[in-house]
């Protein structure tokens, strides 16, 4: 087990390295042209451009120059010295400032979507074919068909203050830190949590329903019935236990993604200044250092949780031997 984990960690580091490289490649190489010129803007003189180039370390040339620049950037990131091209702010610090909002959004939404997803999926499966199942399935399908951006906007419009419909049950976006006012913190997060969770609840509910219906036909469930176990015990200990395993895998990765700033749209629509929002801003201005930072931050979460999920999976299913 320990050897497995060490090997995985090594692999993770490689992946992160590759990710940073790819981000660099995407922003420097793909657009082509001269990044310093792009940053300097349209009315810059050539002296300005040369100046920027030197300041930002972009004056290396050729193939080796490329690597040197990349290495510099990564080193700066890890020593918390990386500075944005656009506005000279420290990237790592900006990310840290975004953490509370992103974490609050992610954790709250994850609890909601996992809880409701399992509930909805189980009810739907147990009542398969009947009206409650059809209704839940319909709602779930609608839930996964609505674009998140639109849902967020609509909810803001209809339910949030100053949205224009006159109804003002919820505040119109913005983030209130947990430490300053817990009630307002939650109040401001209710709509974003819901917006983010709807998609996942629909998806998880349907996957779970499908898994449960498959598991119910397994031989070992038939044996459990033949033993005379109560329906509830069969459902919980035998059926759900088997059906939830794939869900746990999905959940691990989705949660990691949102924690890693993947909820860019939700954060943007509701003006929650988290890591995702920061990413969106940086992309608009094609600001490479923050993008590098945010992408590595996000990738790190995904890769770590990937390992956690695999280990947990092995714990849940004794047939799996990590090797």
């Amino acid at each position, binding site marked *: 087990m320990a050897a497995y984990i060490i090997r995985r960690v090594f692999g993770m580091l490689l992946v992160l390295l590759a990710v940073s490289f790819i981000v660099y490649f995407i922003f420097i190489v793909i657009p082509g042209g001269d990044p310093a010129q792009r940053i300097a803007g349209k009315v810059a003189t050539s002296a300005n451009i040369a100046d920027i180039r030197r300041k930002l370390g972009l004056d290396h040339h050729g193939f080796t120059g490329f690597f040197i620049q990349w290495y510099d950037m990564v080193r700066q990131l890890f020593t918390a010295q990386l500075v944005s091209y656009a506005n000279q702010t420290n990237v790592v610090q900006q990310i840290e400032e975004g953490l509370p909002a992103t974490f609050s959004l992610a954790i709250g939404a994850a609890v909601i979507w996992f809880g409701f997803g399992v509930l909805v999926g189980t009810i739907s499966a147990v009542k398969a074919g009947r009206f409650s199942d059809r209704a839940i399935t319909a709602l779930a399908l609608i839930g996964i068909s609505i674009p998140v951006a639109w849902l967020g906007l609509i909810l803001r419009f209809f339910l949030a203050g100053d949205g224009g419909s006159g109804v003002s049950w919820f505040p119109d976006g913005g983030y209130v830190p947990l430490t300053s006012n817990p009630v307002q913190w939650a109040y401001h997060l209710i709509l974003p949590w819901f917006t983010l969770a709807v998609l996942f609840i629909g998806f998880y509910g349907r996957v779970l329903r499908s898994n449960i219906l498959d598991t119910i036909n397994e031989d*070992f469930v038939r044996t459990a019935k033949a033993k*005379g176990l109560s329906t509830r015990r069969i459902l919980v200990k035998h059926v759900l236990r088997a059906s939830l395993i794939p869900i746990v895998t999905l959940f691990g990765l989705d949660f990691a993604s949102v924690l890693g700033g993947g909820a860019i749209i939700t954060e943007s629509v509701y003006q929650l200044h988290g890591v995702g929002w920061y990413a969106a801003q940086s992309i608009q201005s094609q600001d490479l250092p923050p993008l590098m930072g945010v992408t590595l931050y996000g990738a790190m979460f995904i890769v770590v949780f990937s390992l956690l999920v695999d280990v947990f999976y092995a714990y849940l*299913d*004794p*047939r799996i031997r990590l090797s």
Partner: protein
Amino acid sequence: MAERLLEVNDLKVRFATEDGVVRAVDGIAFALERGKVLGIVGESGSGKSVTAMTLMGLTRGINARFEGEVLYKGKDLLQVTDRDMQEYRGNELGMIFQDPMTSLNPVYRIGEQIAEAIQAHEKVDKRAARARTIELLRQVGIPNPESRVDDFPHQFSGGMRQRAMIAMALSCNPSVLIADEPTTALDVTIQAQIVELVSRLKDDFDSAVIFITHDLGVIAEIADEILVMYAGRVVERGTTRDLFYDPQMPYTWGLLGSIPRLDRPRAERLHTIKGAPPSLINLPEGCKFRPRCPHAFDKCMQEPGLANRVETAGHLDRCWLDVAYKREHRDESISGGSAEAA
């Protein structure tokens, strides 16, 4: 006369499927006494598994319809609610299935699964349940039960898994053990061990056994009485001796003939029964075996009733053929000597 535990009268089971109504079991009847082994023999689709599972109430569902009676100690199990059936399953009727690998939950230990069965029906604490589990494992012949009780199913071999399943089924001392093709998925050598185990346990636990298989060789070892099923019906019924020495149904001859035998003159080809079992949705008219029967004649367009047509009482069959004719011609069919290739 031993206690009559189970009495099945004119049981019919129908399933509604997207292709039509499947008449899986179409009127079968039998009785089972304590200490006896009833063998049920037939091809796939003959209705033998459906019968077994119906006794346990495992075939209930939105698309299933039942007729007839299943009397267990006088009580009609078909009328018992599903919830109340939980009391009977495991407790009064135990069942083991064909594939022990998939029939056991892979994520729980063997001991946990057996103890679960015990604790479902008896008020014992975990420690007592575990002790009983270990004892049961010893009784079914699993070596080192104290350590193997914590193993997972995939750590057991096929034969041992089946023994564990038997232990689980017998854990609450049921009066009836139903074994649905318990040896089909196992090696031949292991098969013999399992059959011997079931036989011994039947005596140890003083229970009755219904043993279902398509393998006549296995049934000869263990059964007292045999039912031959075809297309959802019983087509022949009698003691093991009757069936093997005086079989009355051409179908039974076919089954007997298809076993390769060392003590008979070697035929050019192994005898097979031509054709395929009939659709359970569109059953043929008259005798269900008629389309495949080499001896069919015009009276066979009327379905024969299950009746006693021979001297021995209790030996029933569904065939219009004259008994003397049968005794004269059946050896051909069984040994397959003159069966020309088609």
